[in-house]
């Protein structure tokens, strides 16, 4: 079958065609790729890897819209994209841009669909059926007469897809369609894409950062790194290369990490990685089951052989406990991160495994006890929400919010878009003032204190760093916050320089000339330099790649360890589970549940109210605790789960040896 898109040794660099060829790095570097009709392909990679450029090459925006130097050839449906117009290409390849607000042309959903249909000269007697059918396929028939401005993010994304799909393209290219969505909406968008792919046979190429979604929905995953294709294959093939992925800076599904780790330790037989919780459950229960069987069988010869092999593998696993890069730890080592809790754990790795296990149990019994030595409970909370209520003139409101955050604690707010999480953060930093109840930040009532004064105690990192940046150089930018607090110019610059150096940012560069991830780092640096008592994070990791996301979160944990209280709104449950101490679930403007992260994730009622799926590891350990062994209860991290399995298997064989 002829591929619908065939990219043949394409290289591309942005910028003017003349001169400076050596200075401009290649956005794409000799990429060859063929997409078969009807495929569902996911593209992933760290930021700056060339994912969006690849999408532009497929959609014809390169060479027709963006200027630059292009080598090689791209064939869409057999025709060279350089020889046909962008309009012709877009009748075959429909693309949904990253910024859907910029893509929309109309104020009403129906008109949005009409625009393309009218332009491409679809006969007017067919237009009505096209609109009805497309809306029905996407499942948004009820939105037909709605104003686009009143739609939620997920609905808007569906309208954007519908507007392209109505043109009946043979292929859809989407650039991070779920970046601004909550997990439930993100899933819905992918389900929509699957429907389109299955029922209409439309080829789908989607750039996405959420590995769990990619591995579940895509048939093929392309991993990009530095303008090249690093890996290309089925999700199972791609995620079995966890070491390469880690080096590139791409996350793997947590279940794949568990299975890869178990295979590397020789506990599980080599095979494809587990992509779903069910797969992983199967694997772990069979491994543990076999070990138990071996123990029961006593001196059975087969078990003898097996125990010998476990014994042989015990050495590498204990070696990893003594600081060699283990699955989890290596990520942070490669991320070249600062000293963090986790690296401290790497140091703790030098303890015996039993001690580490005991430490884990202790940690789980206490509400994430890592800050316990600071005695959270005795310290006065720095953020206090006391029966806080607020209503927008439009009608949306939050009611009766009650929580307190102590110094050194990371507190997460989770829930669907529109649940009131952002409103809560705005109440916190004083941008909104409560109509009921009281918000106190470091003892200051937000109703009596100007926002600029609250800013001295609470620093906010916004989802979009571009709204925060306003200076000409990185140094000015980072020093600006300090200057606003009345720190003298020279001292402010000195402190700013120290932080900039630690982040490895270019001091004299203009913030807006940096990449998205680096701009977020600049924004983060200007928060860190303030050494605030409270840090507010609104979606700190959206739009960042895995490595950047880790750097941001590690920095935040480090700030927490130094005594800052952190309040974060986050849609990525893996991040919440890895870094937060406590979480509150919000739904319909209320807090429906609040407690240690582990407890929240293990409570199905809360998960349903928040419309989120628990992180894979929590789900897996819960299932294992119910079906295999109570020892799995409460585990929230890959390394702990792997250790437990190893201990069960090897512990079993040791017990048998003693007998």
């Amino acid at each position, binding site marked *: 079958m002829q591929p619908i898109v065939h990219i043949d040794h394409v290289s591309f660099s942005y910028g003017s065609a003349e001169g400076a060829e050596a200075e401009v790095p290649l956005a794409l570097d000799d990429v060859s790729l063929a997409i078969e009709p009807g495929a569902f392909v996911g593209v992933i990679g760290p930021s700056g890897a060339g994912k969006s450029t690849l999408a532009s090459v497929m959609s*014809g925006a390169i060479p027709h819209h963006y200027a630059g130097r292009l080598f090689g050839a791209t064939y869409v449906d057999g025709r060279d994209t350089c020889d046909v117009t962008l*309009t012709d290409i877009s009748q075959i390849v429909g693309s949904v841009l990253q910024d859907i607000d910029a893509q929309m*042309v109309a104020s*009403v959903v129906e008109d949005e669909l009409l625009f393309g249909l009218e332009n491409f000269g679809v006969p007017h007697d067919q237009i009505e059926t096209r609109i009805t059918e497309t809306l029905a396929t996407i499942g948004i028939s009820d939105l037909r007469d709605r104003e686009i401005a009143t739609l939620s993010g997920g609905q808007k994304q569906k309208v954007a897809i519908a507007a392209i799909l109505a043109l009946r393209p043979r292929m859809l290219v989407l650039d991070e369609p779920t970046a601004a969505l909550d997990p439930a909406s993100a899933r819905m968008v992918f389900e929509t894409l699957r429907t389109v792919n299955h029922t209409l046979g439309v080829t789908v190429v989607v750039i996405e950062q959420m590995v769990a979604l990619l591995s579940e929905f895509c048939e093929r995953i392309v991993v990009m790194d530095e303008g090249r294709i690093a890996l290309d294959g089925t999700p199972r093939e791609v995620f079995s290369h966890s070491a390469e992925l880690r080096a590139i800076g791409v996350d793997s599904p947590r279940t794949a990490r568990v299975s890869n780790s178990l295979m590397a330790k020789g506990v599980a037989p080599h095979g494809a990685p587990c992509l779903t919780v069910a797969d992983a459950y199967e694997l772990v229960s069979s491994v543990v089951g076999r070990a138990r069987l071996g123990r029961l069988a006593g001196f059975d010869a087969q078990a003898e052989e097996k125990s010998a092999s476990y014994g042989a593998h015990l050495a590498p696993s204990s070696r990893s406990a003594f600081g060699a890069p283990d699955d989890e730890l290596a990520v942070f080592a490669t991320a070249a991160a600062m000293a963090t809790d986790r690296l401290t754990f790497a140091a703790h790795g030098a303890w015996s495994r039993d001690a580490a296990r005991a430490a884990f149990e202790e940690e789980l019994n206490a509400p994430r006890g890592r800050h316990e030595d600071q005695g959270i409970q005795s310290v006065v909370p720095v953020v206090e929400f006391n029966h806080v209520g607020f209503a927008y003139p439009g009608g949306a409101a939050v009611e009766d919010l009650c929580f307190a955050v102590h110094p050194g604690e990371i507190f997460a707010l989770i829930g669907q878009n529109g649940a009131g999480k952002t409103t809560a953060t705005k109440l916190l930093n004083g941008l909104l003032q409560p109509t009921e109840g009281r918000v106190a930040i470091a003892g200051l009532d937000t109703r009596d204190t*100007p926002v*600029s004064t609250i*800013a001295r105690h609470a620093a906010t990192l916004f989802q979009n760093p571009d709204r925060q940046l306003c200076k000409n150089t990185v140094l000015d930018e980072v020093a600006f*916050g300090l200057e*606003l607090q009345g720190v003298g110019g020279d001292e402010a610059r000195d402190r700013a320089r120290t932080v900039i150096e630690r982040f490895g940012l270019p001091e004299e560069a203009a913030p807006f000339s940096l990449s998205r991830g680096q701009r977020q780092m600049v924004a983060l640096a200007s928060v860190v330099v303030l050494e605030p008592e409270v840090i507010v994070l609104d979606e700190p990791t959206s739009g960042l790649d895995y490595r950047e996301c880790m750097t941001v979160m590690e920095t935040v944990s480090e700030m927490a360890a130094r005594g800052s209280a952190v309040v974060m709104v986050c849609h990525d449950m893996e991040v919440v589970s890895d870094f937060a101490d406590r979480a509150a679930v919000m739904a319909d403007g209320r807090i429906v549940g609040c407690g240690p992260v582990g407890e929240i994730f293990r409570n199905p009622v809360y998960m349903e109210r928040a419309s989120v799926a628990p992180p894979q590891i929590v789900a897996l350990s819960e299932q294992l605790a119910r079906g295999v062994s109570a020892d799995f209860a409460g585990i929230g991290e890959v390394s702990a789960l792997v250790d437990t399995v190893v201990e069960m298997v090897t512990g079993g064989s040791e017990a048998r040896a003693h007998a």
Partner: protein
Amino acid sequence: MLNVIDYVPGTTLLHKLNPVTKLALAAAIIAATLLVSGFPALIGLLVLTLALAAYAGVADRMLSLLKVLVPVALIMFVLQIAFTRAGNPVLGFVTDQGLVTGGKACLRLLGVALPLVLMLMVTKTTDLANACVEKLHIPYKYAFTFTTALRFVPVFSQEMNAIMEAQTARGVEFDTKNPLKRLTLMLPVCIPLLVTSVAKTDATALAAEQRGFYLRTRESSFKRYPFTALDAGAFALCAVLIVLGVLL
């Protein structure tokens, strides 16, 4: 967030008029406002606009717009009084002629702004663009530019709000009472806004081209905008308004 120029759905006669007719009606009211010279006529035209707004069910939006416009009109009034030296002094530097010209300038400002806004409130921008292309033979390129500009007003004002919030949260004193200080603080905020808007405009151009923008002709529009008897009546009203404007 609702915006004053957003379309308000409705089924009144005003909504049902052809977009071009609505444009003509607004233009006629504006022309009349500029032509008439007496206070009663000026006030009459304003009342007409407000009555039409009330009929179309957008009175509340119109009033919230007035809250913004009236202070501007008052500034204009004060300036006129200060600069008009002719006439007899009434109080201090204020002359009777100053009061008259100031009052008229003030009413004209409102009389010019309100009909246009009212027209936008009762017309979908896509309809306006399509009807102008069909009836007035305006090239679609310009109609699209116009509607896109209108569509970006709320998008940019939201962006501006978000930037101001972000800067306030950083400690920039936007909450200061001093308007001059506020203005100087606003300037740096324009940089991020400019950067975002350039990126957005580029993305819009690309998205439009990928949806066949360059193929569009006058016949492309699915909806047709024929003139009806209702429109004829409205055009007659326009003529009457302009004639009255010349006479009064």
